């Protein structure tokens, strides 16, 4: 009975069968999609160009290149006959990375011309020499015997010339990439220094250095990092000044990095640093060529990365983060005061909220009586403890600062005004935050803007809250503890073997002279020696 009922063509049964049928169709589509994915994955296997062998046949080599570069629409090749040799040939290049005018005029144009001497074909081993000496009007070309290398070169913007019968590929330098023009560095502006900053092209950046250091002893060593990206890096140092062991160490650490794709200089920095888990940076990133040049002639080593306008200087000590190019363009007295103000600002930016919380919560005795009474009066009616008050204001400040950085330049100042003035004023009027707290936080923010280096600024901001927490739980004792631990931590740090607190802390009396460019800027006539802590090969910088 039941079977009959199930098979009977009732409306419910038909609906159920239709539903099953729809589900089946959906499944079939899924299966079809899956099959497509499997088919694609089989045809799009990860390619290892080095596994391909170069052959004498042009067709085979072109086929291999097509397999390697598969569907990439920017990959182009053009077949033609070299008139002078009467041989089939092809040029291969990547559109947008190569100089097409050079390819058209100096490569294809020249190769299509018939031989002036009327000579015929050459033996295979003489073809490269003949093209180099008689036909190709290009500055730099070479012969590659390995497919992997040839692919790397074409992906870098060079042009490959494949000739039938020749077991090798002629690589012609023809790189021409669109690049941002040299402009003023945005994160390190100055008043009297040079206005040029590094750009994304490593070659342009090297040129910016060479323009300032016209000396054959400026060494640039190429290192390729990135198993998949083959990103170009350069280790730059001044031979005869930089300690050879330092230059060697920088290069070795760079070569040891086995990363898939280095996404930014920060990743490389993290992999090279002596203390990657410390929040303090032990390599100085800058986009100012004058700063890098100054570092190089002091005996430091620079690390450049293609595609990034920031260059790392090694080793970097804490005092390096307080220096700016302008320090050396002002009179030494003025520059010294400005630099000292940066150190003071860093301490204020880090500790003022914590000290205020500690004093109002635990140690009002540290303030003069009148001030204590004034502060206490303003805090009357505030519902929150000083720590919460400060915490809320700091979080607000951080949000405003981050918003100011990320927003378009036209909107950034508006956000600051709304946040700083309107919200600040409103919170005080509403009795949520005391006026002294607003003053403290505003002062903290201004002090942090005086820190020359953005990364150091971030660290200072980072330490505000833990210090405040210590101030809120243990008073001034806690704040002092925080500072002691921080000093211990800073003393522990090293950058390529150089203690992070050098030259503030000296190893011996010889290093005493390094103090002249630490807290203050000595007159130029005193700057006759390079920093001793870098153990430069040539310690003398100028004759007195």
């Amino acid at each position, binding site marked *: 009975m039941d079977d009959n009922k199930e098979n009977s063509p009732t409306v419910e049964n038909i609906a159920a069968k239709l539903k099953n049928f729809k589900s089946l169709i959906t499944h079939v589509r899924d299966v079809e999609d899956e099959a497509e994915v499997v088919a694609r994955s089989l045809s799009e296997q990860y390619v290892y160009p080095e596994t391909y062998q170069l052959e004498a046949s042009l067709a085979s080599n072109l086929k291999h290149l097509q397999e390697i570069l598969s569907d990439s629409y920017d990959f182009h090749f053009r077949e033609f006959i070299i008139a002078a040799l009467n041989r089939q040939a092809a040029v291969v290049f990547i559109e947008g990375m190569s100089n097409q005018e050079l390819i058209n005029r100096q490569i294809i144009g020249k190769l299509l011309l018939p031989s002036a001497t009327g000579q015929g074909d050459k033996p295979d081993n003489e073809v490269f020499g003949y093209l180099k000496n008689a036909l190709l009007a290009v500055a730099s070309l070479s012969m590659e015997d390995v497919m992997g290398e040839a692919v790397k070169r074409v992906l870098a913007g060079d042009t490959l010339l494949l000739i039938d019968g020749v077991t090798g590929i002629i690589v012609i330098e023809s790189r021409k990439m669109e690049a941002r023009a040299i402009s003023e560095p945005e994160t390190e502006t100055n008043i009297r220094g040079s206005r040029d900053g590094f750009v994304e092209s490593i070659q342009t950046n090297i040129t910016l250095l060479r323009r300032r250091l016209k000396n054959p002893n400026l060494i640039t060593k190429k290192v390729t990092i990135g198993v998949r990206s083959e990103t170009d890096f350069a280790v730059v140092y001044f031979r005869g000044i930089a300690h050879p062991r330092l230059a060697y160490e920088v290069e070795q650490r760079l070569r040891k990095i086995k990363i898939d794709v280095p996404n930014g200089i920060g990743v490389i920095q993290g992999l090279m640093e002596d203390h990657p888990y410390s929040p303090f940076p032990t390599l100085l990133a800058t986009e100012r060529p004058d700063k890098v040049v100054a570092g190089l002639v002091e005996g430091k080593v620079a690390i450049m990365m293609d595609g990034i306008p920031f260059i790392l200087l090694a080793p970097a000590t804490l005092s390096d983060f307080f220096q700016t190019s302008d320090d050396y363009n002002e009179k030494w007295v003025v520059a010294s005061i400005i630099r000292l103000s940066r150190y003071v600002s860093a301490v204020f930016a880090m500790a003022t909220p914590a000290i205020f919380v500690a004093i109002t919560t635990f140690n009002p005795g540290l303030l003069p009586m009148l001030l204590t009474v004034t502060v206490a009066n303003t805090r009357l009616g505030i519902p929150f403890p000083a720590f919460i008050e400060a915490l809320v204001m700091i979080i607000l400040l951080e949000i405003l600062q981050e918003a100011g950085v990320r927003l378009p330049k036209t909107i950034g100042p508006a956000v600051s005004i709304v946040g700083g003035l309107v919200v600040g004023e409103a919170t005080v009027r509403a009795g949520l935050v005391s006026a002294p707290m607003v003053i403290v936080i505003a002062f903290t923010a201004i002090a942090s803007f005086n820190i020359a280096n953005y990364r150091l600024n971030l660290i200072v901001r980072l330490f505000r809250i833990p210090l405040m927490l210590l101030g809120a739980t*243990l008073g001034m*004792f806690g704040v002092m*503890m925080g500072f002691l631990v921080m000093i211990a931590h800073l003393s522990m740090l*090293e950058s390529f073997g150089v203690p992070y607190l050098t030259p503030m802390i000296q190893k011996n009396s010889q290093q005493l002279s390094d103090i002249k460019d630490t807290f203050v800027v000595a007159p130029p006539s005193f700057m006759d020696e390079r920093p001793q802590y870098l153990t430069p090969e040539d310690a003398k910088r100028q004759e007195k």
Partner: protein
Amino acid sequence: MANLEAKGKMSPWQLGIVITSALLTARLLPATTYIVISSEQFLWLSSALAGLLFYSAAYLIILLGQQFPNETIGEYLPRLVGKKFGAVVFLIFITVQLINIINCLIAITTLYSIFLFDQTPRAVLIIVLLLAVIYCTMQEWGTILRVIQILVLALPMLYGFYSLIWINFETLNLLPLWPDNFSGILQGVAYHTEYYPGYESLLVLLPLAARGKVSFARTVGWGFLLVTIMYIIGGIVLIGAISAKTVSNVSYPVVFAMKSVEIPGTFIERLEDHMVTLFLPVTYISMMLSYYVIGEGCRKYLNYNDHRPFIPLFLPLIFFVCAFTNTPDRLEVLRNFSMFIGLFFSFVIIPLLLILAWRKKGNIEQC
């Protein structure tokens, strides 16, 4: 990793700085009362004699170290006095260092509790300070040395603050100028173990110092001289400001003297609170040094690769003794014990060890 710096070594001058910075701690604050009870207004004379006496002890340690260059006390003790006696002497040495840490901890935490109106229980302050000391001591010697070189800057700042007491100086308080109670002055010298602690660290630190043109005796001597001069001037100004009678009646005379300082026409008040905060980094140095010396001494004695395992080992003991010593009676016992063991170690054990070392070396040379 490349290292352009030689780690774990210091110059003779750095050794001098280390020992100098270890001498001045918050321990001197309560001790001043006891010294003045005995020495009266001749605190300065007592401090001068103590400086001479304790430097002679440090000099004996340097002489002992010269007999065993590149070796710490833990390494040559078994050879010098045998394994059992060596262990006992080494234990006394460790005890001297531990007591320095304990005394420093008690002094600084009590100071904070009393003068900064801190509501935090003293035990919490002790444990936080101990953890901060441990964090630093767990590092290698190069790091510790750098920390000392930074924190030593608090010393002139502290002394600068203290010098404001000159404002209240009255010469009459120093009279009579000629001492008539020599026994009291000498008794006061003994209490100066609180004024000159930590030089025993030389027994472990000497091998870490590079031998150069300048002798250790000279650099350490300069350190002692500097600190002694500071104590002499400090003693004169303290008695001159608040009189010997007042000093002997208050628990923390230096802070008391500071309380009475007023700089008219300025905004600044209650300078004693600021001075108290400066005592923390100064005392931290001594604690850190003693703790490192314990770890390094144990490492060498037990032939370990690293000093770090020994650092947390002593934490419960230090904390327990500090927390337990919370009544005046217990503090008195601890003070007497630390004075006794300090003097016994410096003026009985060290000379004996030196004589033994000379005798043994003499025998070897004769052979």
